[in-house]
């Protein structure tokens, strides 16, 4: 079996193929789509979704699910905005506090899930309601942030030549991605997550720290969500308690399109990036087109998602069929 082409990496390659085809077709249709700027935008505009999806990848790999992320993003965003705006804090401690709280929130959810053997779906559904309510407790309307530190962060750009630049949000996303890929492949925690999702009973009998891993995954996801909330304040220069509704479903979709199985144990953080990009490319292409009204837009998003997921399955199937005799 080839080192790079085996049945674990195949879905990943198929997904990448789908992304290339999708982007290619869109580039041929729409002038100005195949530019560094649009590509850079994909990263900048999907940073919040991407960071959430990365956290979600770990949760799903461990065999769980987390519905609370959209609310946690909103909560941390308004917390930072309120502390910096009306509160007069410096952004750095405010962000720090938000990320710590996000982590603790995830920790709490993980603790409930693990020690009381509760279904993650329900616990995090509770978490979703709770964090949303708390976001509105912090402030009922969106709060703008005006601070020199934010201006500094906003002016940070990594030029890629031409008109393509990566703003701070995209850079944070890429940083999180690199760290997450590292954690998933090269730390015992990351490998334990896979083991836990692959077979929790075996993981326990193999002497792996099941409790720590499961609680840790939710804590990690809490941190990711909080970070996404912070990135969102950068993206919008404000915090809004109503933001991020339905973000969890987009994140789950991105993770699953990226080839991670909801059953746990199988998938890659790298795949999630591809899932986010496919999601983003479909949206961008339809925006570029601009001729669809609200309902046709929804229909088109759904149809394209369906067709490209089928395409991904088909590519995987064919490649598997071809790879098999060689093994």
């Amino acid at each position: 079996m080839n080192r790079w082409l085996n049945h674990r990496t195949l879905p990943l390659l198929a997904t990448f193929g789908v992304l290339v085809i999708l982007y290619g077709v869109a580039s041929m249709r729409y002038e100005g789509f195949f530019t560094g700027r649009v590509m850079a935008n994909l990263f900048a505009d999907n940073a919040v979704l991407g960071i959430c999806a990365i956290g979600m990848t770990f949760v799903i790999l461990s065999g769980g699910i987390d519905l609370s992320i959209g609310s946690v993003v909103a909560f941390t965003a308004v917390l930072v905005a309120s502390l910096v705006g009306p509160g007069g804090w410096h952004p750095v401690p405010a962000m720090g506090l938000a990320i710590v709280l996000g982590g603790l929130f995830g920790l709490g959810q993980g603790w409930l899930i693990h020690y009381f053997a509760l279904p993650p779906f329900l616990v995090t559904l509770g978490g979703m309601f709770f964090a949303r309510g708390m976001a509105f407790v912090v402030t009922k309307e969106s709060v703008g942030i005006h601070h020199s530190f934010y201006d500094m962060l906003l002016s940070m750009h990594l030029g890629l030549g031409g008109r393509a630049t990566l703003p701070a949000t995209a850079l944070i996303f890429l940083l999180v991605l690199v760290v997450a890929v590292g954690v998933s492949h090269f730390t015992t925690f990351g490998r334990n997550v896979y083991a836990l999702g692959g077979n929790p009973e075996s993981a326990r009998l193999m002497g792996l720290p099941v409790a720590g891993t499961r609680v840790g995954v939710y804590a990690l996801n809490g941190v990711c969500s909080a970070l996404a909330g912070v990135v969102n304040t950068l993206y919008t220069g404000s915090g809004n308690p109503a933001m991020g509704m339905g973000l969890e479903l987009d994140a789950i979709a991105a993770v699953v399109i990226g080839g991670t199985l909801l059953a746990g144990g199988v998938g890659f953080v790298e795949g999630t990036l591809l899932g986010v990009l496919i999601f983003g490319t479909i949206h961008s292409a339809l925006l570029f087109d601009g001729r669809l009204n609200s309902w046709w837009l929804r229909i088109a998003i759904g149809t394209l998602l369906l067709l490209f997921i089928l395409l991904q399955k088909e590519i995987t199937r064919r490649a598997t069929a071809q790879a098999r005799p060689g093994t």
Partner: protein
Amino acid sequence: MSGSTPNKTEPAARRDGGASVPAGRARDAAWRRVLWPLLSLGVLLLFNLFFAPGFFHLEIKDGHLYGTLVDILNQGSKTMLLAIGMTLVIASGGVDLSVGSIMAIAGAAAAILVTQAAWPFLLVVGVCLALCALIGAGNGALVALLGMQPIVATLILMVAGRGVAMLLTDGQIITFDRPAFVFLGNGHFLGVPFTATIVATVLALTTLLTRRTAVGLFLEATGDNETASRFCGVPTRAIKVLVYAFSGTCAGVAGLIAASNIKAADPSRVGEMMELDAIFAVVVGGTALTGGRFTLAGSVIGALLIQTLTTTMYNLGMPPAIAPVPKAVVVVLACLLQSDKLRSGLRIRRTRGGAA
């Protein structure tokens, strides 16, 4: 908890008890699954008894019952219907996120047919429900035949379905006043809301269809171990398509009721987030998200629990922005109540495992 006396079970001795004993045990187990959601509901009602004056007040107005409890039954009917359909989907090991969108399609299609075609209302209902069943079967086909993960397969329809509904109405709210259609969601039958009658009928029919035929057994077996069931000759794919089609139909009925309630089809907003309520109702009701064993009654109780909670918050004047917090508390408490059950279940399992 009751069986902690250390009597050694001799299978041969036990079997002499006759066939009625095991049958009773099966009923016991079913009852126990419903116990916890029922208890949660009871606690919430008790809370209202003390803190919400008039909550239990009922009177006869215009020849039918009138009061908060009746409202809960009426307003909760949509969630209850969705939960009934969702129960079967979850039992098969799946989940259906598209129910809200199917509600929108059903409402929109019915409103258009009622306002623009002179069809008899029953035909309209028939056509709409058939359409919803077909859409649901489409979900099922994606899951069962193409092997897509249920959450993604139904997410697609969740996104696109609402678009289809808006396409039907051209994005407008379509109002209607056909008496038969209005009766569906606002009428009364034997003094109680007609919606309650619908829920009771659907619940009874579903129970009958699953428990009086072998569909229930096939469904539980499929959800518990699909491969093994297929090897036994259980038509697992057909079962899966069937449950999604059924869930679609239930969502269709809920959509018709939702439209009838306000005498208008509101395709952009109807049924938003209701899929989560329905899933919550099912899981709180004692059906595990991993599939297998299901209890329809539990899901209906779970749906009532949610509606009671919402109504309670209206009554207490809870600021709407903060309303999610108590909801969260109830969700987690309901979970914890269930956890005891899980742990006692775990204890029994260990016993038998250890004796082996």
